[in-house]
Each structure stands twice: as structure tokens, then as C-alpha cells.
């Protein structure tokens, strides 16, 4: 905590003398999250300050965290001969694997829908391209967002931006354990009267480290060696069981 507070103060101190328009400066508590053997999820803190602030009324802050893009397949089950079977499906391309949004107010109170569409703000404004076996992809998209939200991968948090003073703010982004590895982007938007006045984007990375990293790479780069090692390990365990059993006879 102390680390990001210090960074925050440095950013505030570095604020340029006020002549230009209102602007935003933000930072992160860390630029890397390492998945190790005891990783169970973590938090990243986004903090920022408004430079050359104008009147606080009519001003909104939106913080978005986007994970790496991925394909998302949604399937719908139907009852066929008494059994529930996957029938219709929709595949969305380039949806973020993680999407967090915190805002000072509910999004539709901050900006009109076309602005939200343009900046892809809010899970329903992502509008990914869809290949679908069904004429309407909307229920599939809604289902995907609902289920990803249940896993903590999609979050919409209106009012989750804490102001420590009139111009200093922060928000806490919970990163769940089952998160995708890759580059994440944090975007901080300054809205004034329904339009974007300033944006700042900062990346951070999530990756496996240590033994987990090595095992994952081993499994994908030398799958034959990895398979043989697994087999060898299980033979060893079986042999050990046999020795133990005979000894205790």
C-alpha cells in the first residue's frame, strides 16, 4: 500500500503548472502479477489525480481494465429425447478475457450510448463480431457476460471510485485466480458533460512464474518428455505403494 501512495504523491507533485485544459494522470500499484504455486487471485490498485481541475460538477471518472482478447464460444442446451444437449451456439471473436469497469456513476448517466460504443465502455458495448448458428446472437452475448461476471471475470462497478480529496481518486481491481495470462490494459477516462476529455492507458502483465511457468512450458514445448515424466512418476508411486504394503504386510 505504501508503495502506491508514494507513487501517487510523486505524480501529484509532478503536475505541471496550470495553463492548459483539465487532464488526468494515473498509475498502478504494480505493473506485473506473478502466478506462482500459491496464487489465489490478487488486487491491483489504480490511482490517479486530475490536473488543472475545473469544477467537480459535470465531471466523471471511468476506469476500465481489459484482459487479452480471446474467442468466446457460447452454447445453448435444448431438450432432445429427454436429454439436455448442446444445440445452438455462437462464437464471438476478440472479446476480452477479463473486463473490469468502475465509474463514478452508472454508465448510462455519464455518456450517451454512441459514446460508450465508440470507446467500448461497458460489457454490453463491446460488440464483438459473432458467428452464430442462430439468427440472433444477443441472448448468447448476454449469457456470456452473465456467466463471466459470475466467475469474477467481468465486473461493472458503478460508484466504486473512491475520492480521497476533490482531485485524488483510486479504485481496487480484484483479479480472480482463474484469470488469463497476458497483457492487460488499464484505461482511465475523464468525462466532462458526457464526452471524453482525457484518457490515459497503462499496461500490466499477468504471467506464471517459477515452477508453474516451467511446467506449463515443458508441457507445451516438449509434450512427449512431459508425458513420459508423468508416466514415470506414476510408476514410481505405484512401486512405492507396493514396497510400503509389503513392509507393513
Amino acid at each position, binding site marked *: 500500500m505504501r508503495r502506491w501512495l508514494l507513487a501517487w504523491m510523486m505524480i501529484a507533485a509532478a503536475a505541471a503548472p496550470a495553463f492548459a485544459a483539465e487532464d488526468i494522470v494515473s498509475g498502478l500499484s504494480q505493473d506485473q502479477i506473478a502466478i506462482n504455486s500459491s496464487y489465489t487471485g490478487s488486487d491491483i490498485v489504480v490511482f490517479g489525480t486530475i490536473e488543472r481541475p475545473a469544477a467537480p460538477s459535470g465531471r466523471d471518472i471511468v476506469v476500465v481494465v481489459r484482459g487479452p482478447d480471446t474467442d468466446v464460444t457460447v452454447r445453448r442446451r435444448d431438450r432432445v429425447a429427454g*436429454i439436455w444437449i448442446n444445440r445452438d451456439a455462437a462464437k464471438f471473436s476478440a472479446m476480452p478475457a477479463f473486463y473490469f469497469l468502475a465509474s463514478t456513476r452508472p454508465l448510462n448517466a455519464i455518456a450517451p450510448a454512441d459514446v460508450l460504443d465508440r470507446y467500448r465502455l461497458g460489457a454490453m458495448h463491446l460488440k464483438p463480431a459473432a458467428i452464430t448458428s442462430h439468427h440472433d446472437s444477443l441472448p448468447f452475448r448476454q449469457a456470456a457476460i452473465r456467466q463471466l461476471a459470475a466467475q469474477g471475470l467481468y465486473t461493472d462497478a458503478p460508484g466504486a471510485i473512491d475520492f480521497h480529496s476533490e482531485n485524488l481518486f483510486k479504485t481496487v481491481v480484484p483479479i480472480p*485466480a482463474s484469470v488469463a495470462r497476458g497483457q492487460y490494459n488499464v484505461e482511465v477516462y475523464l468525462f466532462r458533460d458526457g464526452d471524453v476529455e482525457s484518457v490515459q492507458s497503462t499496461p500490466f502483465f499477468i504471467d506464471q512464474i517459477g515452477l*508453474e511457468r516451467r*511446467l506449463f512450458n515443458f508441457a507445451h514445448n516438449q509434450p512427449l518428455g512431459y508425458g513420459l515424466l508423468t508416466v514415470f512418476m506414476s510408476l514410481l508411486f*505405484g512401486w512405492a*505403494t507396493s514396497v510400503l504394503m509389503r513392509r507393513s504386510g
Partner: protein
Amino acid sequence: MEIYLPIAEMSVHWVFIVGLGLGVGFLSGLFGVGGGFLLTPLLVFYGIPSTVAVGTTLSHVTASSVSGALAQWRKRAVDFKMAGVMVGGGLIGTLFGVWLFAAMRRQGQMDLIVSLSYVVLLGSVGGLMLKESLATLRAARGGVVIPVRPVNRAWIAALPFKMRFRQSRLYLSVLPPIVIGFAVGVLSAVMGVGGGFVVVPAMIYILRMPTNVVLGTSLVQIIGIAMVTTILQATSNYAVDIVLAFFLMIGGVVGAQLGVRAGAKLRGEQLRLLLAVMVLAVALRLAWGLVAHPRDIYSTMLGS
């Protein structure tokens, strides 16, 4: 302490995984089965992706079969030639099964196929076992001996490519063992089971192997197929999680010992009845999952 599984890409509590290995290991020791048919569904119920559950369970099956096989080998009760022929068929079956597995996954029908094969196979095997063990118990009470109905084997005797299996005292076409091995290979790749509950009856009723070599030979054959399947799942589906396998086996080693000791105190017929009830319970639970209204009719999968 939570541990992170690098292939399943999720974190689990180690106590749960070791406990699961212990429980299934206990049953393996008690009944002399590999336990794959219980372990795979339990891992899936816990939330492990079904591809990883199927790919990883076979390591546990290998470990729990090795100690039994070693014991039988010391008693010279293994027909290695027969096991080798069956593993040969198993290799082709496994290749086919792993391909089927990948194709089903692309179609989004993997869970359905896995559940359906479990319900059909465990339901029929469990039902037969229950019927037989109830009849045996009743007969034991009444003092009546039930005659074993011989399977008509004339057509098997007529098959070509005959080979002498000295240990089993059989002169038999290699086709039936290859076909049985093939079937077990498919099962182990698609369902993550060793297939003992299919191999043992097949050896007794179809191949007519002497009962003293059946157990050892089936264990050796299961180990062979489980090893081949593990390597194929690792190379073609990247579905083997070595960390998960490690913690499962730690529990399995201890559980198997406890199971063998508990098994010595129970009678064979009672054990078979218990096993039949358990197999049927798993089948019913999976059948319920197929017919019950799902909590959410949609399912979401990330990645391509």
C-alpha cells in the same frame, strides 16, 4: 494452502485433492479396481475442466495398478503375451479415442459423450454385478450352487491368426484380445478409466482365461494402456496436469494401503455387492445430470 494447477490453470485446495486421492485409493485397495470411473466424475464435479480430469486420472490409475500387478507378477500370475497383444489393440483404440476426444471437444459435445458413456457402461456393468452378487448371496444362504452359463465360443474358435498363450493355456486367435484391447483403449482415452470392469469379465467369459491369471494380466494390460493414453493425452491435447496427478497419488498411496487392510476384514460377496451399489450410484448421478433441467441452459467457453 491452495495450490495452483499449471495445466488446469486454476487453484485448488491441496487437502481436497489429497483427500480425493485417499478416498479413491481406499476403494482401489478395497475392491481391487483402478478407481478411474469414480475419480474422473468427482474431479469434474469439483470444477476441474473435463479434458484435464480425463487426461490426468490415468496417472492415478497407473499408480494404483502397479502395486497390484507387482504382487501378481511375484506369484507368476501374469500372461505377458496376452497383455502385450491386448495393449497392441489398445494402442490403436487409444489413438482413435484421443482423436474422437478432440473432435467431440470441437463440437461442444464432449461432456455429453463422456456422461452418456459413463451412464451406459456403469449402468449395465453395475446392474449385472448387483444381480450376480445378490444371486450369490441368496444361493450361499440357501446352499444352492449356481451353474455358470457358458458363452458359446464356437465362432471364436473358428477365427484365424491363432497364437499359443502358454501362461493362460490357450490356443486362440489374436483377434478377440485385439478387439477387447481396442475397446478398452477407446474407453480410457474418452472416459479416463483403466477399464478393469470391462477387461476382467471379457477375459473370463469371452477369452476363457484361467481365473488365476486374469487379475494379474488385466492389471498389466491396464497399466500399458494407461501409460500410452497419458502420453497421447499429453502430446495431442495438453490435458495432463502433473501437479494434480502428484497430489492425487500422494493420497492414493496411503488410501490403497488402508483399503487393502479393510478389504481383508470383509467377505468377497459383500465387497462385490458394495462395489455394484457404488458403480450404480455414480451412473444414476450422471444420468440425473443429463435429464434434469440445467441451472443455466447456456455455457461459455473461453479460447478457440
